[in-house]
């Protein structure tokens, strides 16, 4: 067990190192040198200026040195300077994290609260009209782009209330903040809930076919007890694993939803940085996202080991 965790941990570190190389290479070696782009963007014409710019950004050094500068900076919390604001990248990124984290958490809660119960109902009432409607509902969740759903929600607000819920920097209270965030969170969470619902349904159907369900019924347990004490406890295990995939889903949804709702979070900031070709920000933000997804997946794996008594890694 301990060996498994250690091995899994080292794999995670290895993945992150590989990730950092991939991000670095993708941003440096692809056509369109950063200094050229910046050079054009800044409207400079003088070759000397360009050389000065390259030196300033450390782009004249060998690629390995550049990579090392970045990584050692990451370790010490020095992420370099943003091109656009010329402020330390860390100061640009850090304040934007809490709102995105809250939004993501809220969306995850929504997706679980919607997805798991509907998935269970759909499975228990398999092949009924209700099941068919819920399946179409979940499939539509996977098919609606979350930015469009967000726009539709905006439209509904405009139409019925005449105003748009705008996220302000200083919400009056925690409830006010949750209220403001829950609308975009719903737009993101709906799509994620569809995934959870589909998985819960198929996992639940699989479990309901098992022999131990018949055993539970033969004991005289009620349908509710069979469904919830026996079936759901087994069926949620694979659903937990999907939370890792959910993290990726949520981040994708957050990127477009923060843009639509003008929420000053990291996800929207990434898009802005990409548009402005603010590479220190892009590089560090993408790395941050990679760390979050990889760590979430690691934690999910660990949680799974704890929750499923059958799993024992003693290799």
């Amino acid at each position, binding site marked *: 067990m301990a060996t498994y965790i250690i091995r899994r941990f080292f794999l995670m570190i290895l993945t992150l190192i590989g990730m950092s190389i991939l991000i670095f290479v993708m941003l440096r070696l692809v056509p369109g040198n950063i200094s050229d782009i910046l050079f054009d963007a800044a409207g400079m014409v003088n070759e000397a200026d360009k050389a000065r710019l390259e030196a300033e950004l450390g782009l004249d050094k060998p690629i390995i040195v550049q990579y090392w500068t970045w990584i050692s900076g990451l370790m010490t919390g020095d992420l370099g300077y943003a091109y656009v604001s010329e402020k330390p990248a860390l100061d640009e990124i850090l304040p934007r994290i809490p709102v995105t984290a809250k939004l993501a958490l809220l969306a995850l809660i929504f997706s679980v609260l919607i997805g798991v119960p509907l998935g269970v109902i759909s499975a228990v009432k398999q092949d009924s009209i209700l099941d068919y409607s819920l399946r179409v509902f979940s499939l539509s969740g996977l098919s609606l782009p979350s930015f469009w759903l967000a726009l539709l929600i905006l439209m509904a607000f405009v139409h019925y209330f005449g105003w748009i819920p705008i996220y302000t920097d200083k919400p009056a209270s925690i409830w006010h903040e949750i209220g403001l965030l829950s609308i975009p969170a719903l737009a993101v969470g709906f799509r994620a809930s569809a995934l959870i619902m589909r998985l819960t349904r198929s996992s639940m159907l699989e479990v309901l076919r098992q022999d131990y369900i*018949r*055993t539970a019924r*033969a*004991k*005289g*347990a*009620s349908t509710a007890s069979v469904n919830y004490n026996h079936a759901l406890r*087994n069926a949620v295990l694979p659903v937990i694993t999907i939370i890792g995939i959910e993290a990726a889903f949520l981040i994708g949804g957050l990127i477009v939803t923060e843009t639509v709702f003008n929420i000053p979070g990291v996800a929207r900031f990434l898009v802005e940085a990409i548009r402005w070709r603010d590479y220190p920000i892009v590089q560090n933000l993408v790395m941050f996202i990679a760390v979050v997804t990889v760590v979430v997946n690691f934690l999910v794996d660990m949680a799974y080991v704890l929750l499923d*008594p*059958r799993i024992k890694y003693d290799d």
Partner: protein
Amino acid sequence: MTSTNAATAPAANPKAATPAEGALLTVQDLTTYFFTRQGLVKAVDGVSFELQRGETLAIVGESGCGKSITALSLMRLVPDPPGRILDKSRIVLDGVDVMKLDESAMRKVRGNDISMIFQEPMTSLNPVMTVGDQIAEVLLLHQGMTKAEATAKAVDMLRLVKIPTPEQRVREYPHQLSGGMRQRVMIAIAVACNPKVLIADEPTTALDVTIQAQILDLIVELQKKLGTAVILITHDLGVVAEAAQRVIVMYAGRKVEEASVEDLFGASLHPYTRGLLASIPRLDLIRGAEDTSPGRLQEIPGIVPALHDLPKGCAFAPRCTYADERCKAEYPAYEEKRPGHWAACWKSEIVAGGTNG
């Protein structure tokens, strides 16, 4: 031991509807159909029998003959849809008409008055619950015990089914136990509430040969200790000989023969039963393998007919060496051919005259 059981297939004989005095379980005209895409499947078709207190009744037949569905019907656990127990069926357990109970009253019967051991010990226990919790569950449901009492009783039950170090095992999960141990746990669950009837559906089939005997011995021993009546469902006549007093043979959803174990093994009156008996390996026969064919291990030619597409006459006729035109046209009456020995066969007298095998 000998029952005055009487019912004819396919139609129930109204005169036979008087249950014998003191029968623990009376099943009359049990009919379970499956309404499937392929058509109507008559899984159990008008089966009647009685079970006396403390008795072991075996139900034998090949897979697909309806014996497991009979067991599930007694528990009223037939998956619905597609299955349904028809309303004409009567199941009377100790004076209570089980068919008339509503679902919540039926739940109080299951696991308490009548319980069941399944064929697959590997998959019949919930993998994410401890063994103790699974035994305790049935006690909490029916005995009104507290959690602590139920857990303590669970340890006793594990001891009763001869699991070593029960105090430790009670906290373990099914995957930590061997197949034989899991079947012991299943038995512990089944007998925890001291049921009137215990149904054992192929309890040893999935186990190693060496374990099979141990589990069977355990069931026999517990039955004597607890006085439970047992319905033993099996395809293995060796198991029948060892554990049962009376046997019902089923074929294609119907009862084709019923007799005491001695009578059935001594002089069976149905060619299907003869076929089953001939397919048991016997050491004395194997040693004398050079003997002429009647001594050889035989298998019944052909396969069990599809239940949604049964022939008009006797369902066994297509596989039967004795069958003639009448067998193919008309279903044989289920009659008492000898005292306490019933069979549904037009040719039973010829069968009785022939050599066994």
